[in-house]
């Protein structure tokens, strides 16, 4: 059976600098992983800024082409998609969720326009009633309905609601894969878990695989099935999420794991005090 998504030795280099001091930045180095098509899962890419996680996501969505290596989606080389028809076919199966919901929706466009446009283009629906029914069906999956969304602008809703609408929109064509780049980092704390829990529902009830990209190890632990940890473009550790995040082995993943502040004043304070004691002994700060 062809895998849903297969990355094989993917590299991405950027050349940076001006005329004289041109140099190459290896944004992504030799990344390989595979998502099976018969087993929907939440696959998490953890990394800090500059780790190459966003570049990887953009390559998966076909927004960037790899310098070398291949990305295959349902057997098809993503970088080789040229015609608009093929591109639309690909987009119907793989959809993105963006980081900042206030940025992802044009503030001057009504939200339903995105839903209707998606339904028209990917489902080939013509009549207004059909389009609206499709949008409403999708909104039901995320706990909303068209009456709540119709005619609204992004500033009228909260970040959490917008992110739900973004998910509903992505679901309209019936995708197999959703690539979510830091989808909760701009969402309010009281609503954050609603989005995270939603991803779990999509996996369990709709059979959608999700690539969840984040720097937040706590939510990664909470929802992921498998995880890879990226550092400066390379995958330093990968495997079952509970094992990798629970007891990491690579030095960088351990450092990352230890950098997570626990939501508990006693433990968190102890970490800061330990840092202070260290600094006082070692650095010039003690002088």
């Amino acid at each position, binding site marked *: 059976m062809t895998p849903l998504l297969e990355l094989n030795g993917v590299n991405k280099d950027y050349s940076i600098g001006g005329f004289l001091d041109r140099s190459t930045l290896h944004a992504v180095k030799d990344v390989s992983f595979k998502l099976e098509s018969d087993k929907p899962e939440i696959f998490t890419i953890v990394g*800090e*800024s500059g780790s190459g996680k966003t570049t990887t996501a953009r390559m998966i969505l076909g927004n960037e082409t790899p310098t070398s290596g291949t990305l295959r989606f349902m057997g098809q080389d993503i970088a080789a998609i040229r015609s608009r028809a093929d591109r639309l076919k690909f987009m119907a199966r793989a959809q993105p969720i963006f980081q900042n919901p206030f940025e992802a929706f044009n503030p001057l466009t009504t939200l339903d326009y995105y839903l209707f446009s998606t339904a028209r283009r990917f489902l080939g629906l013509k009549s207004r009633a059909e389009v609206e029914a499709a949008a409403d069906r999708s909104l039901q999956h995320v706990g909303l309905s068209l009456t709540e969304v119709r005619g609204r602008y992004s500033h009228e*809703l*909260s*970040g*959490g*609601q917008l992110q739900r609408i973004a998910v509903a929109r992505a679901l309209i064509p019936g995708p197999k894969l959703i690539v979510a780049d830091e989808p909760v980092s701009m969402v*309010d*704390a*009281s*609503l*954050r*878990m*609603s*989005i*995270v*829990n939603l991803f779990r529902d999509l996996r369990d009830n709709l059979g959608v695989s999700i690539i969840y990209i984040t*720097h937040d*190890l*706590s*939510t990664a*632990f*909470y929802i992921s099935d498998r995880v890879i940890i990226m550092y400066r473009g390379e995958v330093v550790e990968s495997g079952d999420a*509970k094992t990798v*995040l*629970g007891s990491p082995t690579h030095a960088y993943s351990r*450092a*990352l*794991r230890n*950098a*997570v*502040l*626990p*939501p*508990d*004043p*006693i433990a*968190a*304070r102890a*970490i*800061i005090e330990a*840092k*202070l004691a260290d*600094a*006082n002994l070692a*650095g*010039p*700060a003690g*002088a």
Partner: protein
Amino acid sequence: MLDALATPSETRTRPILEVKGLKAYYQMNYFGVQREVRAVDDVTMTISRGEIYGIAGESSSGKSSLIKTIAGAIRPPLRVVEGSVKFDFGGKTLDVYADPARMKAARWQHLSYIMQGSMNVLNPVRKVKHAFHDFAYKHMSLGEGDFRQRLVSHLERIGLDPRVLESYPHQLSGGMRQRLTIALATVCEPEFIIADEPTTALDVLVQQDVLALIKDVQRRMGSSIIFVTHDMTVHAAIADRIGIVYAGRLVEEGPTLDVFQQPQHPYTAHLIASLPRIGDLRKRKALPGKPPNLSEPPSGCRFHPRCPLAIDICKTENPPLETRGTGRVACWRAGEVEAA
């Protein structure tokens, strides 16, 4: 620590900041469309000397408007409608909105800021040393040489190589830049520091170092800090007391440990219960509903439309912020909130 002891003991017991019944609204008029956003609505609080006071709240809860108002750094359309903000610097009371001239003089010397984006403070096309000159030099009444010496020793204390003074901001890493903004805010040894999301834009690995640095500097100088962030784990790590802001109002306040262990407001209880934690797979619930719109806030308790404990009185009457146990809480059913 030694610096703090130098102040007379009776002034040490007086709070450094007293905010009374503060109301600050955005009043706007766009081509006949009038709007009033009650970003800060009747906030009363005090901050003691040497205390780190954390302000927690979601986006557009009014927490940044609150600290802007406290700092006297508001611009129309945001206006103070009622109430007062008073600092106590070196035994002298400074009313922020009654005495703008003295407030201006107190800036940076007694009251400074650590901001979220270091690039807002550091001019990208000038060397770092110019920033120190622009912000601090005139407040320190030192000669060029002495000032330079003071700078160098201050940077060393903060764990920065003094050579950074000769570099441009873009040549430094994000963590180093944030250290610089802390150095910049603390070089005059101010009594009061306002820190607005200082760790939010930082990578996880640097965050702890920066928090430890802030704590270290604060201890050494005995300053008070208002620390604003939406990240509850940061508050857990650094704040002595926390104030929770919801829809422009202070809904709960108390010692960090107590707030985390025994939250008294249903909103706080939810915030804390929803924090995911490595090693814990129990399902976390999200609050229903959406954060309130501050230009048309709900009647009564502003949290009532989303509150699992809401009863009739919550819909009509605003609960006052009352002392309960070690803290204060504004909830009609404060006694019945359980830590999840």
